[in-house]
């Protein structure tokens, strides 16, 4: 099975994250950038399918030059190769335009199965799998906590607010996964060394047949008008329990009218 995993490089969610003041985009220049955590689960799932059923795993990333670091990191887990969509005109692209670019790249790669994380930790927009599926005219099985592959038939347990849904489709399809689906492997030393030699193909917009004015700020379908930092929360009263902690807690809740 030819599997493509979508990997996004994001600013580390454990550090201070900002929007840029000049163009309101996510500040990726000064931030510590990492693989979007949920994507590691997507990579793991792809590798497990390859190990069980054979095939090839390709990483697909759209992002600036420095996204190369995350691509190598992803490859060190075990995928065979990577495709990096890299073009200066992409800076400032909205989700709708991003899906157009990724769908064009996936069309060229001819994937049987596209796996991605359910959301990224920077935007948390959660729209990409369905946008891509809509453009490619293929099934989207999203929010999976379990994925079973039986020939060309895919079955997922989709996490919902009330429980889960069992959803099936045939390949080709897009599947998005939550972090409950597996436990991603750590790259081995051998994997890290091998990743340095694995092929990474760079594709520009022209290679994908997408015009520069369809993406970036020119092609954006939405815009950030302004952004401000919220003042950090400051802690209030803190008491040490000396036998009356529970009562004091309820007294506080009562003054705030929760009790």
């Amino acid at each position, binding site marked *: 099975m030819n599997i493509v995993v979508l990997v996004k490089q994001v600013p580390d969610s454990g550090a201070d994250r900002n929007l840029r003041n000049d163009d309101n985009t996510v500040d990726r220049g000064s931030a510590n950038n990492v693989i979007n955590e949920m994507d590691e689960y997507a990579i793991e799932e792809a590798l497990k399918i390859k190990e069980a059923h054979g095939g090839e795993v390709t990483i697909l990333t759209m992002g600036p030059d420095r996204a190369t670091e995350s691509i190598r990191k992803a490859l060190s887990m075990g995928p065979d190769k990577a495709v990096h969509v890299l073009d200066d005109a992409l800076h400032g692209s909205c989700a709708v335009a991003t899906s157009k670019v990724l769908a064009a790249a996936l069309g060229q790669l001819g994937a049987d199965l596209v796996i991605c994380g359910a959301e990224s930790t920077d935007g948390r927009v*959660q729209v990409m799998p369905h946008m891509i599926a809509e453009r490619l005219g293929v099934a989207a099985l999203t929010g999976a906590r379990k994925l079973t592959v039986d020939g060309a038939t895919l079955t997922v347990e989709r996490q919902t607010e009330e429980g889960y849904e069992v959803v099936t489709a045939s390949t080709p399809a897009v599947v998005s996964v939550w972090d409950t689906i597996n436990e991603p492997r750590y790259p081995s030393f051998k994997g890290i060394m091998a990743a340095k030699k694995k092929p990474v193909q760079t594709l520009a917009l022209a290679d994908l047949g997408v015009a520069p004015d369809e993406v970036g700020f020119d092609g954006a379908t939405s815009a950030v008008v302004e952004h401000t930092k919220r003042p950090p929360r400051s802690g209030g009263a803190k008491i040490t329990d000396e036998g009356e902690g*529970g009562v004091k807690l309820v007294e506080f809740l009562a003054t705030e009218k929760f009790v």
Partner: protein
Amino acid sequence: MSEVLVVVEATKEFGVKKVTLEMLTLARELGTPSAVVLGGAGAAEALSGKLGEYGAEKIYAAEGDEIDGYLVAPKATVLAELVKRVQPAAVLLASAQEGKEIAARLAVKLDNGILTDVVGLDADGTATQVAFAGSTIVKSKVTKGLPLVTVRPNSVTPAPAAAAPAIEQLSVSVTDTDKLAKVVERVAEQKGSRPELTEAGVVVSGGRGVGNADNFKLVEELADLLGGAVGASRAAVDSGFYPHQFQVGQTGKTVSPQLYVALGISGAIQHRAGMQTSKTIVAVNKDGEAPIFELADFGVVGDLFKIVPQAAEEIRKRK
């Protein structure tokens, strides 16, 4: 005034979800709200009373297995046709998994911008969003097409405004491509009758400090006394204390209740990302240096196994 389409979120068990009432309230500021029910047979009829109470002037319905038996694509197709026909001033959906997914497909179908996790929307279409785990406030606009926004639960206070909506059945014309992902089974795992986590006015969460799955009864007891939902930190979920769908944090649910009670939760950034826009935060933790106290409006340093039962007893006394 032009129509504003509100795509209804509802469950079989509890009916119209609170976020739907919030969206209807918000829609009234922008135009005339019309509710759109996309669900199983008879869904619109069952929900019409409540939708009317909160100002839906009209209800569009597309119902049946063609709509409900597949993953979101048929809903997006029906909605796209409706949008093209009525040319609404805006389309509002819930900022939850399915709402975002329908909106995603609609955006591509209409080549229209999309804004998610919106907490406020002005009449000129300017939306307010909260980004980066609540640390940044963003004002943004759809610049191509109509305002297509997903609204985060607990962003608006629902206000009733009586209306008597008529139901218009939409003719369903879903394509074969819309029916590629078939829902073969729906399994309920929700426990009891607690409010849903993202919609609850009160959330009581437990962390690693709760110790084991059995001890989560304490968390549940306090949640029930406060009429709240139960949440869990990633550490608690990873340790198997509580199911994943109740996880609050960066890789779980984002909640913004009136009151958030954190029990035995240290307050790692992973957790704070999902709860720090809560109005009031209360924490109990044995470690006085735990970062959760930096956020808490009221914190108690001590043993939660002594403090929580005492608090529960005190609430019972006051009732």
